[in-house]
């Protein structure tokens, strides 16, 4: 909104040029300084908006869905956790099939939350209530599971899983135990546990969803610490993105995270209902919205995010029981 107010004002300064014809040099100098200052000040008062074009919405009798992922062949997988199902849609958003039911057996779920897909198309489901990650074929046939250890006080509470094919690792976010677990992708053996409860570096308070960046760094939404922590594949702290608050670059309830081709970081805030975009180094870059109107785009309880190879942004809106699919504008490699 500041952007909208600022530029008309700048135009007015141009219009007053004839008012001081006798002192042209001073006026030009003054205007140059003024305009420079104005340009410099715009970011301090305004917010950059990234336009997105709504392609379609997926509504399929969801009950508070949480996460979304897209396979290389364009199938859209949505975690419909209350229904204990994974629902699969084609690129146009038409339901193709679903699988899963409540239970603790193979291909059964208890309140799954997050998911990822590896480069072979296998599905990794954070089967939260069963304290495990299930690895399934594209149509839900069981392949393997990773039983998470938990600790003495809390059973494991996997909320998201991220596959790093390059480093041959699977990262699992254990929400209740405030840490990440790295597993060998081939053997499914635990390699390392990252982090513990706390607010400092390498500490988490209720980590939730995560995503993998271009440099194979892991971006973990640290909900109660209201930030996104960036760690490398060794678990070493790299940076943190965002802080507590409701201003741009701040979070109230960060939930979902996704990385675009420019390695920019998209973070959803489920209570504020916005998606903010950060540079990979942590600086606020923009919010999703309409530059033409200056309005920040509002979502209903945005949670899981996904950006596919075609610059399509998928936003799970839990309480709206839908997944919104957008075309990102101006994002190029």
């Amino acid at each position, binding site marked *: *909104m*500041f952007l909208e107010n600022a530029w008309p004002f700048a135009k007015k*300064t141009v219009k*007053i040029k004839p*008012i*001081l014809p006798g002192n042209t040099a001073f006026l030009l100098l003054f205007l140059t300084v*003024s305009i420079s*200052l*104005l340009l*410099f*000040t715009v970011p*301090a*008062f*305004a*917010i950059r908006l990234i336009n997105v074009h709504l392609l379609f919405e997926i509504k399929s009798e969801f*009950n*508070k869905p*949480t996460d979304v992922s897209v396979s290389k062949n364009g199938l859209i997988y949505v975690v419909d*956790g*209350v229904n204990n199902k994974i629902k699969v849609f084609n690129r146009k958003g038409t339901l193709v099939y679903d699988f899963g039911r409540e239970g603790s057996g193979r291909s059964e779920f208890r*309140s799954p*939350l997050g998911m990822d897909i590896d480069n072979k198309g296998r599905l990794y489901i954070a089967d*939260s*209530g069963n304290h495990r990650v299930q690895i399934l074929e594209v149509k839900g046939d069981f392949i393997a599971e990773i039983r998470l250890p938990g600790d003495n006080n809390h059973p494991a509470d996997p*909320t998201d899983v991220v596959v790093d094919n390059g480093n041959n690792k699977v990262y699992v976010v254990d*929400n209740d135990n405030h840490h990440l677990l790295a597993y060998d992708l081939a053997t499914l053996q635990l390699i390392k546990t990252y982090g513990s*409860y706390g607010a400092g570096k390498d500490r988490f*308070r*209720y980590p*939730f969803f995560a995503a993998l960046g271009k440099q194979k760094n892991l971006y973990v939404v640290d*909900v*109660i610490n*209201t930030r996104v922590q960036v760690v490398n594949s060794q678990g070493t702290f790299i940076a943190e993105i965002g*802080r*507590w*608050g*409701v*201003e*741009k670059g*701040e979070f*109230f*309830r960060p*939930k979902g995270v996704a990385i675009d081709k420019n390695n920019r970081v998209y973070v959803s*805030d*489920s*209570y*504020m209902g*916005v998606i*903010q975009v950060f540079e990979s180094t942590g600086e606020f870059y923009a*919010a999703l919205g309409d530059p033409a109107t200056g309005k*920040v785009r509002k979502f209903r*309880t945005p*949670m899981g995010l996904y950006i596919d190879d075609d610059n399509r942004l998928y936003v799970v809106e*839990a*309480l709206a029981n839908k997944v919104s699919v957008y075309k990102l504008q101006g994002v190029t490699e």
Partner: protein
Amino acid sequence: MKKITLFNILLILLLSQAFSTQALGQDQTNPNSAKACAICHYRWIETFFVEGKGTDLVEYQSEKVVATPDMCFSCHDGSIKDSRAKLGDDSGHKINKKPPSHMKIPGIFPLDDKGRMQCSTCHTAHGVQGGPDSGETIFMRTSNKNSAMCRMCHPATDGGMASGNHPAGIMKRQVPAKLVSLGAMTNKKENEILCQTCHVAHGSPYESFLIEGAGNSALCLDCHEDKNIFGPEGERRPFHVINVPPQKAKIPAEFINKGAKTGYQGSITCLTCHKVHLNKTQEPSLLIMGNEKSSLCLACHADKDYLVRSKHNLIRSAPKERNLQGKTPAEGGICSPCHLPHKPARNLKGKKDFTTQLCLSCHSKGNVGEKVIPRGYTHPLQVSPFEKRDENPFLSGLDTEKGELPLPLFNRYNVRDENGKVTCATCHEPHGLPSNSPSKQAAKGGERPNASSLLRKESPELCRECHRSKFGLVNSKHDLNTLPPEKKVMLESKDPEPGICGNCHLVHGPEKGFLWTGEDTSSDRVRSRGEVCTGCHNKTGLADKKVLQDYSHPVDVSPSDKGLTTTLPLYDSEGTTSKKGLLTCQTCHDPHRWSLQNNSDRDPLQVEPNTHNRFLRLENAPVPVLCANCHPNKALVEKTDHDLLITAPNHRNIIGQTPAQSGTCGVCHLVHNSKNKVKLWAQEFGLGTNVTERMCYSCHSKNGVAWNKVPLVANHPQEEIVNLSGKIKSGEKFLPLFDPLSAEPVLAGNISCASCHNAHQWDPTKASKGVGVNLEGNATNSFLRTRSPDIMCKDCHGFQALFRFKFFHDPDVRKMQGFTAPFR
């Protein structure tokens, strides 16, 4: 002025930028000062609360929003605690609504500014020590131990039975594991009932936030499993039905007004008769109304009111009878001798359906209804009148569509159901009949003793409802009411009102097999099949002029043993149809249908017997449909030269029937009473050396009907014994041999006419009927079994075949050799 103004504005902008940068720096140094509270109290975020403004991302928050559904979900979405299944628009305790006006909400439970309930009405993070890391999962405003918090807002539902509510507290039995697994709370004692044992504040998709649906009585039956109408083995218990819509019963509006609830599709549930909260009736078991003198029962079952005046009103007919509760009819109410809602009222025995067991509990020896005991066999029970209709098209006894049958059928609940089965109550109305019903009227006159048997209709109308097509015998020779007086005296029906059905069938107490009234002539053997027919069709019977004599089509044989298949009904030893059964009289005859033709305007007794009547199941002329059903290969004779309907319509068989009267097959074969055993031959035999030739010569002789088709030499030299085993070349069609006396196929013997000819098929290459024209044959057809060039002589005689054929088929040469053609 404008100069100053413009300059000032620019200056302000510069200063504002400098201030803004400074402010940002200050915020960065102290970013989290209010986070601990504002993490839920969104309104208290500094930007809103101190600075009084919104931001680039969100609007200014002027109202407090703590503990709104969205705020709760922002943590209970799985990111801190996963309560997704419990939070929703309809799955939890009401929010965003004002409490009912009669409800007084204690001040400890704050409503929002508009007087509506919110999450914060019951929950607060400050009521108990806790927070995201405390391990506490529910932040209640006050302790809910023993449902204390529930009772504070809902005091009227407290107090147990005395207050008209379902009891709470310590019970004798434990709360079932199933309920516990569904989330039922028991307050550490497994036999303690709390509000939360049945209700859950969050996550219920059911009415009244029950942990399990009561619309199918499931929640009630979890604890009160002994009230379930089905036992653990699936057996039907003699209890009041639940979970089915009422059929004839009508739930009074008064019940609904009092709070009675029906289940899915208006079905009867536990809560239809029991009101478990706020029940003001003071009746035992929280009944919705009292049941004195069965008044509760009769409130819904008003159609059973005729019971009062029937002999099944045991208050009048057996006042001292006691049910299993020990109560007399007067004490328990008019329904109580037979029915108790959740207990058996009588000792039920056996494995028959519940209704039958209930009837027999009185109508059996030593019991109150022993005067009327069904003896012997009885009409089938637990069968569907519709189930066999499609199985065999010849048994279309029931031509009523489902749903149109006036008599009730009963399902596993013993509730009326068009897909149900026959029980005693299909024919009998044990609760009595309206005084204006025909049965009742007839009973009053005393003329119709059966009419007092609480039958829903009089016989035979009662029978007609299911067996309508059986009434095709009316006025036929099988309608024994048409018997002349001298014959009628021979009837010794056991049915006091035999009617058209009762002359032959007894619904109760017949001999086994067709519910036959006649005496069983066989001692231990089941009455079956033809014996029913021969009961009358014998020399001393009612049908003494239609008696089987001499030779007839075989019965009690299996068509499959002869390599035949049929769609006609076959019967097992019990007299019921079976695909593996045997052929009987009823296979070809339907004793209840005289004619296949619609000649209802004519008196069947005056109709000449022909191939469309005689109680045949199928017509047999001009197309031999009936015979073809078992003998399709023989039926290829139709419209060939051997079909005398075409070639000799005036020719008669040995009993004087023309082809039109006997049918195509009947010209040569008599199904009943043939003088000839061989092939039931229906013509006078001709001359010949064996019976097969003699049958052919019946017609193909000088004086026969086929006098113009007499071969000069037809027989093979008899001295020569041929042993071809019948299947040398092309299977059984190739030159079969026949016994000279019986005409049965044999492996060794002499060549006869039928060795080369198949009298039933004109062209050996086409298994088809004839064309209806008298044709001149040649060596490729002429009823030959195979075409001449392919056979027959050369297979045995090789290159001599032609020579031998010419030599032996020259009459003169044959004569020289001492052979004579007998027909010449």
